[in-house]
C-alpha cells in the first residue's frame, strides 16, 4: 500500500479543491446563460442530472488529450501515435494525418506478440482464409471449430488443470461465470482492489459480497471466521458456499498476490478459490505459467483459474481452467457460452501459435528467450527508477510499474511532456484509482531492447525533474554509474 506524505496530501487536496471551485463557478454561469436559451428537448429528463457528470465535464475534459490517443500502427515497442488538435479547449479533438514515432510504454504487450510475428502470423493468415473472420454462430450450435477444441486442450495443458473452456472476451468471462458458480445464499469474498469485471460478476450473481483488505491474508481469515460463524445476514442460516476471488497481478499496483497464504487460509476454512490471472499468465514464472509457478503453488490447489489472451498472447478472449466436472457444468449453463458468438478463429490460431512458441514446441527457444528478457527488463527498469528517486510501486518480477504522481496538475504535465520527447506513457487518475493517488503506469515488454529502456529512463528522469515527482532522495550518481557499467 502507498503511504502518502502529509504535505503532498495537503497540496493535492488543495489542487482538487481549486478545480472543484472553478468547476462550480463555471456551472453557475452556464446555468445563467442557459436560462435565456431555448431548450429543444422538452419533457425528457436529461441523460445526466446535476452533479452526476461534474467530474467528466469540469476535470476530465481539461486533460482529455492525455487519454484515448489513437495509433496508426501495431502496438509494438515503437509505434505511430496520431496527432490530434482541438479548437474548443479540449472539448472535442480532431485527428490529423500526421503521426509521430514514439516508444510504447503503455500497451499490454508483455511477450512481444503484438506485431506480426514470424511464426504466428503466417498461421493466422492461413486460418483466416480457411475459417474466415467469424463463425457467426454460438459455440453450441455450430460455432465450435477444430481450432477451438485444440486451444482448450492446449490451455488446460499449459496452465496445469484437467480441462478448460474459452470465451470471446475477458470482461464477459468474469461477468458471466461468477453467477454460474455462486447464487443467492452464497458468499463472495473479494479483494478490495479487484477489477470492475469481477465486481460486475459478483453483483450480477445475487450472492452476498464482502471485501477484505488488499493482499492481506490475516484480514481474509478474520472475515472468513466472522462470516462462517455468523451465517447469512438476517436469517443466520449457514452459507451454501464461499468463494474467495483474488488476482494474480493487480494492474494498478503492479503487486503480486500473496497466493500461498491465501490458499492456506481458504483450505483451512473450506472456501473455494478463484484466481484471475489476466496480467500474470505468460508474463511471470519460469516458463510463463503465471503466478502459481512463480510462487510455488500447485495449480490443483486453486479451484478455478481464469485468464485472458489479450495481454501476453497478443490476441483477444479469455479462458477458465478447472476440473472436468466444473467445465462441463459451465458449458451447459453459462450464458456467455450458450448465447454469445464464438471466438474469432484467427484469434484462436494466434493464441495456439503463441503458446506453442512459449512452450518451445515450434522448434526454437524464442519463448524461453522472451520470458527471460521480460524478467530482466522489468527488474532493470524498476531498480533504475527507484535509484533515481521515483516512488515506484509493485514487486520484483512484475512487468507493471506504477510511478506515483499524486497531484492532478502533474498528470497532464507528465503525459504531454513525455509525448513531446517521443515516449508514450499511460497516466491513470480517479475513478480508476483513489482520488489522491494518481499515477503513471509503465508496462514493460519483451520486445523492448536495452537501448529503448535507457532512452526511456533518460526521458522519464528529465521529465520527472521538470514536473517534480522524485519524492525520494536519489542515490548519488557515482554508484548509479558503477551499476550501469556492471550491467553492460
Amino acid at each position: 500500500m502507498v503511504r502518502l506524505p502529509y504535505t503532498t496530501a495537503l497540496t493535492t487536496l488543495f489542487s482538487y479543491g481549486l478545480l472543484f471551485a472553478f468547476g462550480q463557478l463555471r456551472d453557475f454561469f452556464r446555468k445563467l446563460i442557459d436560462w435565456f436559451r431555448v431548450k429543444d428537448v422538452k419533457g425528457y429528463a436529461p441523460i445526466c442530472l446535476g452533479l452526476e457528470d461534474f467530474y467528466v465535464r469540469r476535470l476530465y475534459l481539461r486533460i482529455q488529450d492525455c487519454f484515448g490517443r489513437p495509433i496508426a500502427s501495431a502496438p509494438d515497442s515503437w509505434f505511430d501515435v496520431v496527432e490530434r488538435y482541438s479548437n474548443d479547449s479540449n472539448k472535442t479533438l480532431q485527428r490529423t494525418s500526421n503521426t509521430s514515432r514514439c516508444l510504447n510504454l503503455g500497451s499490454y504487450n508483455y511477450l512481444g506478440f503484438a506485431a506480426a510475428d514470424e511464426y504466428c502470423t503466417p498461421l493466422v493468415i492461413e486460418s483466416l482464409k480457411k475459417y474466415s473472420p467469424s463463425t457467426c454462430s454460438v459455440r453450441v450450435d455450430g460455432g465450435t471449430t477444430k481450432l477451438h477444441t485444440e486451444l482448450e486442450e492446449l490451455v488446460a495443458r499449459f496452465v496445469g488443470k484437467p480441462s478448460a473452456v474459452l470465451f470471446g472476451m475477458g470482461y464477459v468471462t468474469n461477468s458471466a461465470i461468477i453467477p454460474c458458480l455462486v447464487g443467492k445464499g452464497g458468499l463472495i469474498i473479494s479483494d478490495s482492489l479487484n477489477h470492475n469485471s469481477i465486481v460486475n460478476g459478483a453483483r450480477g450473481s445475487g450472492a452476498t459480497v464482502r471485501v477484505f483488505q488488499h493482499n492481506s491474508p490475516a484480514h481474509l481469515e478474520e472475515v472468513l471466521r466472522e462470516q462462517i460463524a455468523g451465517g447469512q445476514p438476517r436469517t443466520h442460516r449457514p452459507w451454501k458456499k464461499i468463494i474467495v476471488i483474488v488476482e494474480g497481478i493487480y494492474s494498478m499496483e503492479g503487486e503480486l498476490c500473496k497466493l500461498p497464504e491465501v490458499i492456506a487460509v481458504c483450505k483451512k476454512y473450506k472456501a473455494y478459490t478463484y484466481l484471475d490471472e489476466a496480467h500474470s499468465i505468460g508474463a511471470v514464472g519460469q516458463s510463463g505459467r503465471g503466478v502459481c509457478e512463480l510462487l510455488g503453488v500447485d495449480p490443483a490447489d486453486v479451484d478455478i483459474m481464469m485468464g485472458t489472451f489479450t495481454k501476453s498472447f497478443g490476441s483477444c478472449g479469455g479462458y477458465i481452467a478447472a476440473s472436468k466436472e466444473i467445465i462441463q457444468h459451465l458449458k451447459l449453463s453459462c450464458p456467455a457460452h450458450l448465447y454469445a458468438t464464438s471466438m474469432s478463429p484467427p484469434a484462436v490460431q494466434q493464441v495456439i501459435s503463441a503458446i506453442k512458441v512459449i512452450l518451445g514446441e515450434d522448434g526454437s527457444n524464442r519463448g524461453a528467450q522472451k520470458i527471460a528478457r521480460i524478467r530482466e527488463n522489468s527488474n532493470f527498469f524498476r531498480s533504475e527508477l527507484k535509484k533515481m528517486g521515483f516512488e515506484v510501486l509493485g514487486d520484483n518480477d512484475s512487468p507493471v510499474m506504477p510511478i506515483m504522481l499524486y497531484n492532478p496538475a502533474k498528470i497532464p504535465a507528465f503525459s504531454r511532456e513525455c509525448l513531446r520527447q517521443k515516449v508514450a506513457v499511460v497516466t491513470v487518475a480517479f475513478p480508476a484509482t483513489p482520488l489522491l493517488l494518481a499515477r503513471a503506469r509503465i508496462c514493460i515488454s519483451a520486445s523492448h531492447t536495452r537501448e529503448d529502456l535507457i532512452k526511456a529512463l533518460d526521458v522519464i528522469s528529465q521529465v520527472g525533474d521538470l514536473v517534480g515527482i522524485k519524492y525520494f532522495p536519489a542515490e548519488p550518481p557515482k554508484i548509479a554509474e558503477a551499476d550501469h557499467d556492471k550491467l553492460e
Partner: protein
Amino acid sequence: MEVILPIANATAAAIARVSAAFNAPHARAVVFGIHIDGHLVVEGLLIAAILFQLSRKSYKPPKKPLTEKEIDELCDEWKPEPLCPPIKEGARIDTPTLECAAGPHTTIDGKEVVNFASANYLGLIGNEKIIDSCVGSVEKYGVGSCGPRGFYGTIDVHLDCEAKIAKFLGTQDSILYSYGISTIFSVIPAFCKKGDIIVADEGVHWAVQNGLQLSRSTVVYFKHNDMASLASTLEKLTHGNKRTEKIRRYIVVEAIYQNSGQVAPLDEIIRLKEKYRFRVILEESHSFGVLGKSGRGLAEHYGVPIEKIDIVTAGMGNALATDGGFCTGSVRVVDHQRLSSSGYVFSASLPPYLATAAISAVNHLEENPAVLSNLRSNIALLHKG
C-alpha cells in the same frame, strides 16, 4: 443510656421540624374543600425519588460475543456445497465441431452438411474481398490491440469503422464494443441507474435481461410484441404522476426478437414514445443488414427517420460476419458512453482486423444491394414450404 438520650432528642427535634413543615402556612392548601397539609414536602420527596430512578442504569441483558473456541467449532462443523451440481445423465455434452468455415455448406466429421445454424444472413463468410482486407490488417496491426480504448488501444481503423457505421445509418456518431453481447449489457447500465424506469418487452434475450438486472432500475415488462399492452403500461406509469417528469424513462425493445423471430412495430412504438416522453433503446443485432431496402435496419423498414430513435445497438456477429458490436445515436449519447460504459472502458478494444472486416462488409452491402433481394426470396421460399 447516654447514647440513647441524644438520639431520642434528635429524633424528637426532627419530628417537630417535619410537623412544623406540614403545618406551616404555605404548606397548607385547599383543594375542592379538602385541606391538604404539607403537600410541598410530599412533592419534594416524589421529585427526589424520580431523580434517583432516572439516574440509575437501565437493565440490559449482557452481550456475549462468540468466543474463539466457539468460532473454531462452527468453522469446523460448516460443510459447503460442491462448487458445481452433478451433471444429469441426459444432458447434451457433444457439440458439432466444424472443420472449415461456417458458410452455407460446411464439413462436420468429414461429412458435408448444409448449415442452418449460423447467423450468416448476407453470406459474407468466405467473401474474398473481406478476407483480403483482413489479411492486410493482420500484417499491419497484428492480431490483438493490446490495450483498452483509453490507453493506446484506439487504432485508426476503429475510428474509421465508427465513422463508416454512423455515415451508413445516418446518425451523428457511433461507438464500437469488442464483443457482441457485451454491447447491450454495457449500454443499459450506462444510461439507466437506480431510480429510473424501464419498460421492456417480456421476450428480450439473456444479454438484455442481464443489462436490465445490472442497471438496478425499476423494470416493468409488457406482453411480448403487444402494443396495446405497452400503451396501457405506459399510461399506468405516467398517469397523474408528476414526479415522472424528472425521472429518466426508457423503453427497451429488440428489432427482431432472437427468441421468437417477430419484428417489433416501430411506428407504433415511436408514436407512443413521443406521447409519453420515453427514450427508446433499440437492439438491432438481427435486423441490421437484413431489414430495410438497403439494409439499414428497422427504421428504414418502417420509414421512420433514424433521429427519432435515441439509442440503437447491434452486435456485428450476424449479418456483418465479424465480431464485436456498436452503438449509435446522437453525439451526447455516444460521448456519455466513452467514460461510463463498463464494457468499453475496462476492456481491451476490438481486434483491428475485425474492425477492417466490418468496414469491408458495410462497403459490400452498400455496393451490392442485390444480396438483400436474394435473402428475401430465400426467406419467402422457406416460409411457404
